[in-house]
Structures are given as C-alpha cells and as structure tokens.
C-alpha cells in the first residue's frame, strides 16, 4: 500500500512535469493566475485609495 501511494503520487508529479516541459500552452495556462492576482490587487488598492482620498477631502471640506 505504501509503495502504491508513493508510486501514484510520484507518477502524478511526473505527469505534471512532463506536461510543463512538453506543452508551452499548458505552462501559460498554469501561470496565468499569478498575474490575475496582481491585477486584482491593483483594482482594490486603487479603489481604496480613491475612497480614502474622498473621505479625506470631505473631512477637510467640512
């Protein structure tokens, strides 16, 4: 049973590595989320900056 688990997990990892090496599109698909995460971070930060600035202006105006 232990050998089977080790073989199965190793085979899965090997398959992933093979896919990575053989198909560039696979690579692109796999790496895409790390860029979308950064885009999201910027969207939220921009919004927060806008809100904070607006709050600051309104507090200064009043």
């Amino acid at each position, binding site marked *: 049973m232990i050998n089977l*688990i080790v073989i199965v997990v190793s085979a899965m990892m090997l398959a*992933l590595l093979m896919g990575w090496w053989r198909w560039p599109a696979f690579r*692109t698909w796999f*790496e895409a989320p790390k860029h979308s995460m950064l*885009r999201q971070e910027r*969207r939220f930060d921009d919004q*927060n900056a806008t809100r904070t600035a607006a709050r600051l202006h309104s507090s200064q105006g009043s």
Partner: protein
Amino acid sequence: MTTGSETPFHRVEQRDTQPDPGVPSVDYGLIRAHVLASFATLLISVAFGLVVATKLNLPEFLGGHAWLTWGRLRYNHTQGIFFGWLGNAFLAFLYYVVPRLADRPVLSRKLGWLLFWIWNCAVVLPGWVLVAAGFSQPLEWAEFPLVVDAFVVLAFILMVFEFVLPFLRARLSDLYVSAWYIIGGIIFTMLAYPVGNLVPELVPGARGAAFSGLWIHDAVGLYVTPFALAIAYYVIPATTRRAIFSHFLSMVGFWLLFFIYPLNGTHHYVYSAIPMAAQKGAIVASAYLGMDVILVVANLLLSLRGSSGTVGRDVPLRFVWFGVVSYLLVSLQGSVQALMPVNRFIHFTDWVIGHSHFAMIGFASFIALGGIAHLWQRIPGTRYNERTMNWSFWLLAAGLTLMVADLTIAGLVEGQVWASSAPWMESVCAVASYWLVRTFSGLPILAGLVLFFTSLVSGPGPSAAITPVASREAYIPAVEGDASISHEPPSSGRIRHAHVIIFGAGAGFFALSFLVLAILPGKELEDEIQRVAPVTMPTLTASEQKGRVVYGREGCAYCHTQQIRSLAEDVRRFGAPTEAWETKYDYPQLWGTRRIGPDLSREFNVRPRDWQLTHLYNPRLVVQDSVMPPYSWLFNGSPDRPTQEALDVVAYLETLGRARQLSGLERQAPGSSVQPGTADMVMAGEPSARATPPTVPIAMTGGYSLSAPVLHPASDPDDLQEEVSRGGALFAANCASCHGSGGVGDGKASASLLPKPANLTAARFSDERLSSVLWNGVAGSSMPPWRQLPTEDLRALVAYIQSLHSSGAAPSTQGATSLNDGESLFAANCAGCHGARGAGDGPVAGGLAPQPTNFHLKKPDRERALEVLANGLPGTAMPPWKSQLSVDQRHALAEFVRSLYGPPQEISRE
C-alpha cells in the same frame, strides 16, 4: 471588446481597454472585529501558556484552585491559540482576500457576523469556560468538549457558504494558489474535525489512537498550514508587486500537501501497538512532506528574488518571510524526527514541545501577523505604527529563537537521561533550568504581541493611508501570459470543473489517509485483540470509570503516557510494551504524547493507596523534586480526608496494568534485572512476542525479586565515610520526604501514610535487610523499590542508614532465664507470624503485607521494641500486646527478639 483564441488548456482572451466591471465590496468591520478578537484571545492564550510554563518550576504557583490547575490551563492554552488566535486571524484575512481572489464579495454580511459570534461566543469562550470547569476531552488539539465541537463543525459549514461559494461563482477564469489553499483548508478541516474529535470517543484504545494521530497532524496540516500558506502566497506578490516565481510549482506544492499531509498522522505513535505498516507509511509520508515543503519554500523565496530590500523595509513582509523560513526549518525537523532512530530518542521530550512552538509561533503566527499587518495597511483610513511593529518583530523573533533552542536542548537532555538507567526524577531535575529559561523566553513573546497590537491602534491618521497610486503600474510587469487574464465569466465552466477535481482528488486522498492509517490498522488491531486478549478481562467499575474521567479532565495524560513503546529503553524502565488489547475499554484513549512524569501503564499493585492519595494531595510530600501540581481540591483539607473523586482517581490508577497482571502475561523471572543491552522488542505482526517482556522493569512495576543483591558498605573507614556522605545526600533527595531528614520517620508525608515510615534510628539493620528493602520496596507499605538507582548509590544509602543508628546501644541486662521466658512467650504468641526462629516466616506470614519482621536482619532498640509490643504497628498485622502481656513479659520478649539478630545458626542456644 474582447477577442479570444483557444489553446488545449486555456481560453486566451485579449481585452481592449474597458471600464472596470466593479470592485466587490469588502466588509472591513468584520475584519476589524476578527483582528480585535484574535489579539484578545491571543494575549489570554499566551498568558495561559506563561502560567503553565511557570508551574513547571513552581508547581504551587496559583495552585489549589481547580480552574487554575496545570492541565486545564494547558488545554485552554493550545485551544485558545488554535481557535481564538489563529482562527480569528485567518478569518480576518479571508474577509480581506476572498473578494480579491474570487472577484466576488463574500456571501453575506449577516452570515459573517453570525460566524463571528459563533466562533467566539459558541466556540472559544464557552470552550475555555467548560474546560476550566472540568468538561473536556483529553485528546491533543481536541480538548474542547463535544458540545463545543458541534459549533466548530457548524462554523466550518458556514465558512463553506461564506468563502467557498464566492469562488464557485467567481468571474475569474483561473484560480490563484491562495484560493486553492483556502478552499482546501475549509473543506478538509470541516471533514477532518469531527473524525478527529468524535471517533476516538467511539473507537477505543489503540484503534482510537490511530484516528487521534490523524487529527493531531490534520489540525496543523489541513487547517493551520493551508491558511498560513494562503497568506504567504498573497502577501509576498502583493507587497513586492511582482508575481510569484512559479504558479505551477505552487500548485504542485498544494496538491502534494493535501495528498501527503493526512498520511503523516501515525508518526506520532512510532513504536506503538499500531501496526508497523501504518507507522512506516506515516514515516514515508513524512519524508515526502519534507520534500514538498522544500519545493513550496523554494518557490516562495524565489518569489522574493531581488526584493531583499523590501523584506528589510516592509515589516509585514518580513513577518511573512520569517514564517516561510520557519516553515522550512520546522517541517524538515518534523520529517527528521519521524525517522525511527531519531524518534526513539526525542519523542515525548521537550524537543517536541519546541517543535510545536516553532510551528505555531515561528511559522503560523508570524505569517498570520504578517497577513494582519498587510491588510491593516490597506483598510481605508488605517495605518500601523511601523516603529512599534518593528520592535514587535525583533522581540518575537528573539523570544521564539530562545524558546525553541532551549526546549530542543532540554529534549536532548531528557532523551539522554531516559536512555540511561538513571531514576526518572533525574530527568526532571536535569531540565528544570531549561524550563525556567523557557518561561522567561515567553516574556519577550508576550511583549512583542502587545507591541504588535499597540502598533495597529497607534498608527498615523487617515491622511497617511492613501495608497501610492503613482506606483501602481509597477504592480503588473509585462510578462508572458498577462494577456490571458480575463474578468469575464468562464464560458466553458472550467472553474467549476476545477473545483470538482480538487474536491474529488483531495477527498480521495483524505479518505485514503483514513483507510490506510486508521481503518485498516484498526481492523488489524481488532483481529489482534480478539486473538490475544484474555477471555476474562475486567472492565472498570463505576468508581474507576469516574476516576478515569477526572484523570482526563485534569490533563494527567499530558504528562504521563500510558503507552510503553516497543523500545528497550521503555521496556527496561516501565515494563512490557503496551498492547492493543490492554486498551480495549479505553474510551477515549489516554496514550498521551508527552512525558514529564513517568509512564503509568503498569501502575497496578505498585503503591499503596495512602501513598497515592498523599501524592495526589501534594506530590512533594512523597517525591521531593516532583513538579506535579497539587490536587488539594480533591481533598477535605488533608491527604487522609479524600473526597470521592480523589478515591476514584486512585481507584483508576490501580487499574492500569491490572488486566495484564491478572492475565498472567506479566511473567518475570525472579532475580532478573536491568540488561543495558536489551534489544528492542519485536514489533508489528507478532503480538505474542510483545506479550513476554525480556526484562524486569527498572521500577514501579511490581514483581518483587527475592534475590536482591547484597550491598555491603565499604570496609575502609575513609571509603565508608565517603559513602555515608553521599548516602546522606541521596537520602535527603529521595527518602527524607517520608522518613524525615533525621530518619526518624517524621517526614512531611508521614502524617498520611499508614503504616508510618520506619524510624531508621531505632533499629539496627543488616546489609541484607536494607539491600532487600531498597531493591524490592516493602509490599503493603508506601516504600517503593529503588532498584532504578545505580548500585553504588544503593550501597551509599545502606551505609548512611546504618550510620543513623547509634551502635553504642546498651547491652542486654536480662539474664538467660529472662531470655528463656522470652523464647517461650515468643513461641506462644509470635511464632505464627514471625516464625519459630523469628525469621518472619511463620505459617500466616505469606498472607500478610507488610511481611512480619525478620529479627535476624533487624534489631530494634529496646525502647522501640517495647513501644511496638505495647501499641502494635498501625497499618500492619502487628497488634498491641499491652492488655495480654505484663510489662515484665514484654521486656522478656523484647530482649529475646533483640537477641535473634544475626545469622540463624548463631542464635541456637542449645
């Protein structure tokens, strides 16, 4: 406007500039509430930990109150960290990060507040109160009682709705690694928690321990680690504004974690009765996990390449970086300590406590703190005080480093002592100074946490809290694949398929872990129990069962294991290895994972009840250097006035090992002793081999040997003086608590012991007598065997005890007539017990404990003999003879028994 093209794996979409579809809302109120709750519970939990640590050096500190006893505080310390601190910190970060990762708000604000109140007011606070009040489970990481567990499961179900559903409805075409960790952490903890908390209550002993082992590791691997790594994977790119090194590697690490981590559980029970195949499987999985962690940490640290300056400047990132490095070190440490050659040495020692603090503070807490600081800076209108937070970092890092180094060394010291034949208390005394350092190392940690919280609430005003928009272009470097990002709903529904895959594969491995490490071993253990267990194995009486509950609620299992491993060191010290059948009525199992006191598996028939009660009332009355807490609330003011609960506990202690002894499996060859070269026991698959220990245990396991070595003190006066001097020190450390510092039997514990400890100044003892008593103890009294002491120490004790008696005792003034009278009186009144020749071997002696005195080996002073003849010896079969014998007769008898001293052949006066 969008254009798209298909690849075999991904729909690549290219977007023209278009309006932002709208940023999901983030509930910063919930974030603040959880941050506040996390620090409130953290500071309380750390305070619990400090008190617990202090009690190891000052056992009486805050003693005498049930609510403040070591065991209950220890339960609340770890559960507070687990649920109160980390739970709230993770939840705060989830409210911050899920809308960003899913591009959807969390499901419901109301649900969020319901979750907040359930988590804190139905889990953490009631859990603490119930544990303090004595309602708990004696299971590692599962100490809150079952009623609280129900709310934990409910909370995780609510988390699925609150945090997982937004991902299922996500508008992102791909899922970032943090999201995978969040989904995996919530779902698999929801599944693992009830198994780890409920199953050991339903499946007894060794079989239940297999499930407990899984949960002990799943608590860290499926709950703490995924959320901590989700934070690390988010904070690093969000701070450096560069994508992580490889999302591919991050996903490989993710899958390996969820595949491998659950398979680690049984490495907490290496050399136990759990089948060896399961143990080895867990060890292999532990090695695999180490490789996975190397991969994960390499990916995270490579994500920081070129950003070392940022790590230095940005305090939240520095916290996360410290946590990532700690993750590497503590995980590799974990992999190594699962290996059998290492495990046999360090398991149950403080090394493991250092390891767990390293994991929970160095890894999880540092990353959680980094995550909180990171998000705090991004809540509109809030900033932290950087200077204060910087101080917090260094205090925490210094305190943790000191604590881990100290406990690691302490563990090595304990392992060294345990592997020798030194008495157990030597290991306690050897690490006392390390415990003190550990306690002090907690102070900078507490101060660091207080400073951290101060930094959150003392930051600059809102004018400083504007995100530097000017630098935002740096967020997204022009890298390959950036064009593939889309915020459109995935037309192919791929994301839903991905969730199905994660759930299916993860659930498959999760189920596999229980099959391989719990269900199959459990079946094997069940078969073994049926094959090996005695037909008439006694169950616990109601009193014993109640005592077991008290034993569990007071945390006794957290210092005393009930698990003798199949190791020569364990067998020599405690007796035969614990077998599965011995635990067949243990609901839940009380194997324990730590030894501060000795293992108690073979406590049956070792010590009399009054010793146990005195020890329970105040351990230092009978064991001078004990660090066990006093349980005085189980008594009505004194050890001889126990409550029913105290009697129940002692009744339970007296059952430990009972089934084994009554079954006849505890066969021990008389005269055998500690064999330093004893090999480890044969293990899995050969229960019959485990059933016959090769040696007599060092101590405390009964089996009084009749062939104690005779320890003759040195004959050279100088050597004898040296022995007496050393014996005095040994006596003060080991014997004075009962016999008193002067040896007159008036030690602190003597008030509650029956029979009273011997007055060693009132009799002359032969070498043989003292050797036998030190080697075997005195059955029926509180005198335990001391054969675990080195032979030279026993010899020194013999020399010292003999020096207590004045050798210049007055010679007999009675004539031969009087001796003849005494002999007649002895034959008529005493020979039934003491034997015709006064050797303590009368016809009824075999049924008496303590056995009648052998006057050839012990010569009482005249006054002592007369006193005993007049008043008897309470607690023994010796009655008072005041009313039956006249003063003259008692004098004659006293002189006669005193004349017997010496070898029997010399007393013949024919």
